Structure formats: C-alpha cells, structure tokens
C-alpha cells in the first residue's frame, strides 16, 4: 500500500504490454473470469482459468501482495477441503481414508470448485493490482466521466494512509515511553489500545479538517477545473470494452438460464 511505484505509476517510464490495456478493460477481464468460473462446475475449466491467471501474472510481474493474498486463501481452501471433505451434506462416496478418517468425494469436489473460483478471482485481481497504479486509475476514471470529487476520495486514501501509519508509530512510541505497554490478557490488551487509538483518531480527524479547509481555500469546487491527463496510450479501448461487456452479459444470461431451467 505504501509502495511509491504503486502510487505514481509506471516508475521507469518503460512501457510494457500491459500498460497498453486500460484499467476498465482489466476490471472487465476480472469480472469475465469470475463470471466464467461461477457459471461452471467443470474442474477442467477452473484449472484452465487458474492457468490463464497464473500466466497473466508471470508475464506481467509477481508482487509480494499477491503472494500473501494467495497464501492466506490457500490456507483457507485447505481448511475448506478438510471440513467439506468430512462433513458436506451431500457426502456419499468415500474417496480415501487417513488414519481411519473418511474423506468423501462429493465434499472434496465441492470445496475444490469453490477454492478454484477464489483462486481465479485472486489471480485476475492480482494482475490488475500489479499492472495498474493508483494515479493511473484516478486519471483514467476522471477521463471516463467519474466526478473528480469521487476520484479524490478514492485516491487520497492511498496518500493519507502512510501518514496515519506514521502517526500511529509515533503515538505508540510515545505511549511506550510513558509506560503504556501491551498487556497479557485480552481485556488488558483492549484497554491498552485506547491510549493509542484516541490520540490517533483525533489527530487524523484534525488533519482532515485542515485538509478540508485548504481544499476549500484552493477552490476545489471550481467548476472550470482542468481534468488530469493520462500519459498512458491505450490500445483497442472501445473494442475491449464492448467485447468484454458482451461476454459478461452472455455469462450472466447463461447462468440465469441454467438456474431457471433447473427449476422447471
């Protein structure tokens, strides 16, 4: 989150293939991959989508954030495999046994399908996260017609956050010097949170007030404001938007049709 390259955009100025794809197309790609994954229960298709997501990441760049998100999800998927493999309500066929505990085929397949969908979303979003900077998103969103106020709200979070984290470290250090230390029991720990959180919240809100006053003084509400210009050159923008939106509509329609025909 505090990574400067993430905030300021293409750091080296070298344009790569993914810089030619606009942010909205990337978001539509996440939507399409997620919808395709949810529309089907075919594990081969899920494996194909996961491979596709992995290839997208490998041919762009792999960040520690994606690896962390994957690590957490893989752990959860593992627990899901255990719980559903043992207790899924439609379990009938024993697939294998470990020290006398039976794991059922139906539950394991169900958990694998759910886990694959999660992985598809994480990998596709990971591609968006590592290839699009926050400032690029902001410029593009404003150019696409989103109000600059909304863009400011979205973007300023990423700039304010390192400031708040810095304030927290200072306050924690100051309270430690005064003898306020994390305690052992949960109640004591919760109580020790207050001496840090109260000054931190007041300082954060105070800085917000100052920021708000300076925004007003600088004429942020001026209707003749100049829009930010994006330095990226995107290719096939409208073609990608139309194609990916059309694919999303077909996938939603397909899913709805299979649900309705299942009820009839």
């Amino acid at each position, binding site marked *: 989150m505090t990574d400067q390259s993430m905030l300021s955009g293409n750091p080296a100025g070298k344009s790569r293939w993914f810089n030619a794809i606009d942010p909205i197309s990337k978001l539509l790609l996440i939507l399409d991959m997620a919808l395709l994954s949810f529309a089907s229960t075919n594990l081969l298709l899920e494996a194909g989508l996961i491979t596709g997501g992995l290839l997208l990441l490998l041919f762009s760049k792999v960040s520690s954030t994606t690896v962390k998100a994957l690590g957490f999800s893989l752990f959860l998927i593992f627990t899901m495999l255990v719980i559903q493999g043992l207790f899924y309500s439609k379990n009938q066929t024993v697939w294998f046994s470990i020290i006398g505990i039976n794991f059922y085929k139906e539950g394991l397949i169900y958990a694998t399908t*759910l886990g694959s969908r999660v992985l598809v979303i994480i990998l596709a979003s990971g591609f968006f*996260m590592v290839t699009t900077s926050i400032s690029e998103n902001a410029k593009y969103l404003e150019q696409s017609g989103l109000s600059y106020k909304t863009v400011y*709200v979205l973007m300023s*979070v990423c700039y304010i956050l390192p400031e708040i984290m810095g304030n927290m470290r200072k306050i924690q250090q100051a309270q430690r010097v005064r003898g306020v230390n994390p305690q052992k029991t949960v109640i004591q720990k919760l109580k020790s949170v207050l001496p840090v*959180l109260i000054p931190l919240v007041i300082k*954060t809100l105070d800085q917000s007030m100052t920021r708000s006053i300076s925004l007003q003084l600088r004429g942020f509400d001026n209707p003749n404001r100049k829009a930010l210009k994006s330095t990226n050159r995107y290719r096939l923008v409208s073609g990608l938007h139309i194609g990916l939106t059309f694919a999303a509509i077909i996938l939603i329609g397909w899913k709805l049709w299979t649900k309705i025909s299942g009820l009839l």
Partner: protein
Amino acid sequence: MKTESIHRTSMWKFKLSAATMTLIPAAVGINYVAKALAEGLKLPVWLGSLGTFLASMLAGPVAGAISGFINNVIYGLTLSPISTVYAITSIGIGIAVGILHAKGWFSSAKRVFVSAIIIAIVSAVISTPLNVIFWGGQTGIAWGDSLFAVMVANHAPVWLASFTDEFVLDILDKVCVAYLAFFIYRQLPQRMIRFFRDDK
C-alpha cells in the same frame, strides 16, 4: 446553528462537501490502522470497522456507508481481492450505525451494547450468503470455523452453521468496536463534531 430536531429529520441528507470528502478517506485510514493494531496485538477481534462507525456517527449513515464501501474496495484492490465483495456488509454496518446514532442509541454505555448486538446481526445476515457462496460457509477464523465444522457434522443446515460462525465472531468484534467508537466519540472536541456534522 442547527437544532437537534433538524438533525433528526436530515439524517439521510448527504452532500459530498469538502469536509465529507476528507472525512471518508480518514475513516478508511482509521479502519486500516485499527485492524493493523488488532493484528499486531494478536487480539481475537478485527476492529476494522472503527473508522466506518466514527464516520457514520459524525456525518450520518450515507457517509458511513460510503466509507465502508470504499474501505473494502481499496482493501480489495490493494491487499485482499475477495474482501471487495464484503463491501456490501460494510455498507450495511455504516447505515445501521448511522441510524442507531441518530436515534440516540449511542448515548449511554447500556444502549451501546444493544446497538452493538443489532449491528452484529446486520453484519452477520449480510455476510452469511457471501460466506456460503465464496467459502462454503466458513469465515477463515479458526475457532468460528471449528464451531461451523461441529454444527455441519451434526447435520445442522449450512446456512444456520455459517450464520452462527459469523455471528459469534461479529458479536465480539462489534461490541468492542462500538465501545471503542463510543469512548473515542466522547473524547472528540465539540468543534470537530460540529465541523463534520454541520458541513452538509
């Protein structure tokens, strides 16, 4: 100066003023650091909705809902993609806190407890379908998931097991966050409360 009765009737009034524009990112930031602090101290709660609570209390349910929504979108696009879908839960929390605060349910310690239970129910009701769709009903927190496993093993319906798993975690978290927000709000200078409340 506006009177209290006007505030009550204008609970839903919302304008993206300069004050709200800076309050929302601050609320998202507070959510983030509170969560980081809880993780650092290894507390059994998330505290990740403290900023949303405060934004709702200061500027009303709409500002709180937007803070919650943006919090999950930013978190999802930078750290954990799946958390984006839980933006719906955060919107629900923001609206619930805003309404309860405007109706005076954050005025005393006893009332805060009732508010916390209502907010936990709102949060669990919205999160349960998402947990079932994405995680087969689990929450990812070990002791909540153990309860889920025990209930499913005893042939309880997945929806009920998932709701119980989410609710026991939510009740603890929301009680802690509601009391933290209550104590912090009482410590805020009046000029600050008026600044964010009157600037609509």
